């Protein structure tokens, strides 16, 4: 059985199912209990599982991640929520110095399985520092996995996989997509594997790599380009940003000979650079054009009156793909 759910409902269902399925799973974060989370991702879970398992914490992000580490080394599977991605900055010491390294430092003696959920990205016209897209910080940190769903079905399956993963996962939920659309989501527990990208549109002319809310925008552009100019895009939703799905990236580029990476994070040292390098290492001789990056500009994410133009627009993505194909 499946129903039409939006992304935030799919997240809620994944959490609900894992709380029911595994007594070790504990949620903690700011306003996640009584309030059900500022985006309602945890709506109804406090009532269902009680305040020992769905914990409204004081307002302290370092403590949310720091205590999650202690819980994890002592047998629980914490799923901390950071209210907005930029609010994780006070907790980066915990994340980089401990979450990512505890398994390594203890040579496997104290793994810290946890899934850090946080809304990320621009597009909902929030206040300053509610729209960051700093996934490359985490993708530069050995020991972490970084997962980004771009739709409700994947969101549920990936979150279940993340909670079941023996390693810590930074799970980035595209804020813009929480209620943007609905799709068929199966009932019950199912998994979408971490580390596997997904081809969402088949094409021969150019590979387009994207994730999160940019996947939707890139897909729209691909559709109109095919309709209007007959260009066929091979659109790949990366879904896991660390470790990347090398095979999916390389196979697609070997087929198309051209590639465009679209991300809303800043361009410089963004994940696009890593994907370009991977293509350079593994598929250079297949290329018929330079690999293009369409990214957020290298400015601090601006106040929301300018936000829509900061993010790669359909026009920019379209121009980038056209330039690459007609190079």
């Amino acid at each position, binding site marked *: 059985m499946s129903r039409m759910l939006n992304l935030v409902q799919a997240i809620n269902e994944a959490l609900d199912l894992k709380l029911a399925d595994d007594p070790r799973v*504990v949620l903690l974060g700011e306003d996640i209990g009584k309030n059900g989370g500022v985006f309602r991702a945890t709506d109804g879970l406090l009532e269902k599982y009680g305040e*020992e398992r769905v914990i409204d*914490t*004081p307002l*302290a992000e*370092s*403590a949310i991640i*720091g*205590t*999650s*580490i*202690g*819980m*994890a*080394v*002592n*047998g*629980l599977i*914490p799923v901390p929520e950071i209210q907005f991605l930029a609010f994780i900055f*006070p907790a980066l*010491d*915990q994340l980089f*110095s*401990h979450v990512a390294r*505890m*398994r*390594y*430092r*203890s*040579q*496997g*003696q*104290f*793994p810290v399985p946890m899934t850090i959920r946080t809304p990320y990205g621009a597009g909902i016209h929030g206040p300053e520092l509610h729209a960051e897209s700093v996934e490359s910080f985490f993708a530069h940190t*050995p*020991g972490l*996995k970084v997962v980004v769903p771009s739709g409700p079905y994947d969101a549920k399956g990936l979150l279940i996989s993340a909670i079941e993963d*023996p*390693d810590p996962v930074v799970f980035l939920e595209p804020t813009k997509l929480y209620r943007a659309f609905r799709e068929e989501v199966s009932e019950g527990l199912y998994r979408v594997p971490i*580390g596997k990208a997904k081809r969402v549109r088949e094409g021969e002319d150019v590979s387009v790599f994207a994730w999160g809310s940019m996947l939707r925008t890139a897909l729209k552009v691909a559709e109109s380009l095919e309709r209007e100019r007959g260009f066929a895009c091979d659109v790949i939703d990366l879904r896991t940003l660390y*470790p*990347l799905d*090398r095979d999916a990236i390389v196979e697609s580029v070997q087929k198309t000979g051209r590639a465009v990476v679209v991300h809303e994070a800043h361009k410089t040292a963004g994940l696009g650079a890593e994907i370009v390098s991977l293509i350079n290492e593994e598929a250079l001789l297949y290329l018929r054009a330079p690999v293009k990056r369409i990214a957020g500009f290298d400015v601090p994410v601006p106040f929301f009156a300018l936000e829509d133009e900061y993010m790669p627009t359909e026009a920019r993505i379209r121009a980038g793909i056209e330039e690459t194909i007609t190079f």
Partner: protein
Amino acid sequence: MLAEHDRAERLMEIAKAEGLYEEIHLLKEDGTLAGPVDDIPPEVMVAMYRHMVFSRAFDRKAIALQRQGRIGTYAPFEGQEAAQVASAMALAPEDFVFPSYRDHAATMVLGQSPAHVLLYWSGRVEGIRSPEGRHILPPSVPIATHVLHAVGAAWASRHRKENAVSIAYFGDGATSEGDFHEALNFAGVFHLPVIFFCQNNGYAISVPFSRQSASRTIAQRAIAYDIVGVRVDGNDAFAVYRAVKEARSRALHGLGPTLIEAVTFRMGAHTTADDPTRYRDQKAVVEDWRKRDPIVRLRLYLESQKLWSEADEAKLQDEVKRRVEAAVEEALAIAPPDMEMMFDHVYAEEPWHLAAEREEYRRTREGVSV
């Protein structure tokens, strides 16, 4: 403006006059008691003494090994033996222990092998494995971060209805970090079974406590979070032991966390890379604190109670010397590491890119050209 030291002394006098977190003493410097110690079995007292004597010998040996270039930088703990040994002896095997990098006297009491401690300071990750049947986390290098881990582990213990507490070991410098405050706050809000064990050894590298905080004591921070705060003479093994025992008992009875400030002194340098004469009159302060030596007073007491003799002492010194030498031999005899172990345990399962890097390393380490 008063000199900082005078100001701190003056404020401490006021604190004492107010009866605010007065330092608890049981065993005085001359080896006599300040109060009854019926709750501490004589065999525990003797065991404490033995551990403390061993720890000091080990510590001095480690410094010597560093000087000889046989281990890396080392963080000595001489002067803090009572705080570390007595607190560790008050714990149970099921407890979770979150040490800093200067708490080896405590972790060795809990079963960590001295050879492993030397390995840790030789840059060998094998040196921080928790002994079987214990939960000793690797020493935390970023200051105060692990205080939050102890809170989380205590949370899990309560969640799983286990009869265990967590203890975090940290110094006075850590109390200036935000994580320390967040930890006290979380533990207070959720009444968690955790012990915050602060060894106030006077200095965070070069910065004295008077420059670390305007608080007269560390224990008084407990007031703000409405948790129990205790200030003990950290060179008094009996006072420390009782404070931790009581804190543990409160924690297990659902009465929440305790902040213990054990007032002690780091006799030596911050690490072997540090020169304390740059920031304090090392000779004078050490002379002053020698009078408060934790080991001397415990021996005086044990002798007065006929629990210890010259013959016991001679035997112990002999044994300690042998154990320290054995630890050194064991540590130095370890085979050099297989360099490839740097790729191990990053993840439960090795991802493709790490496998590729491991392969690259294997292929090129012998300098084989393509």
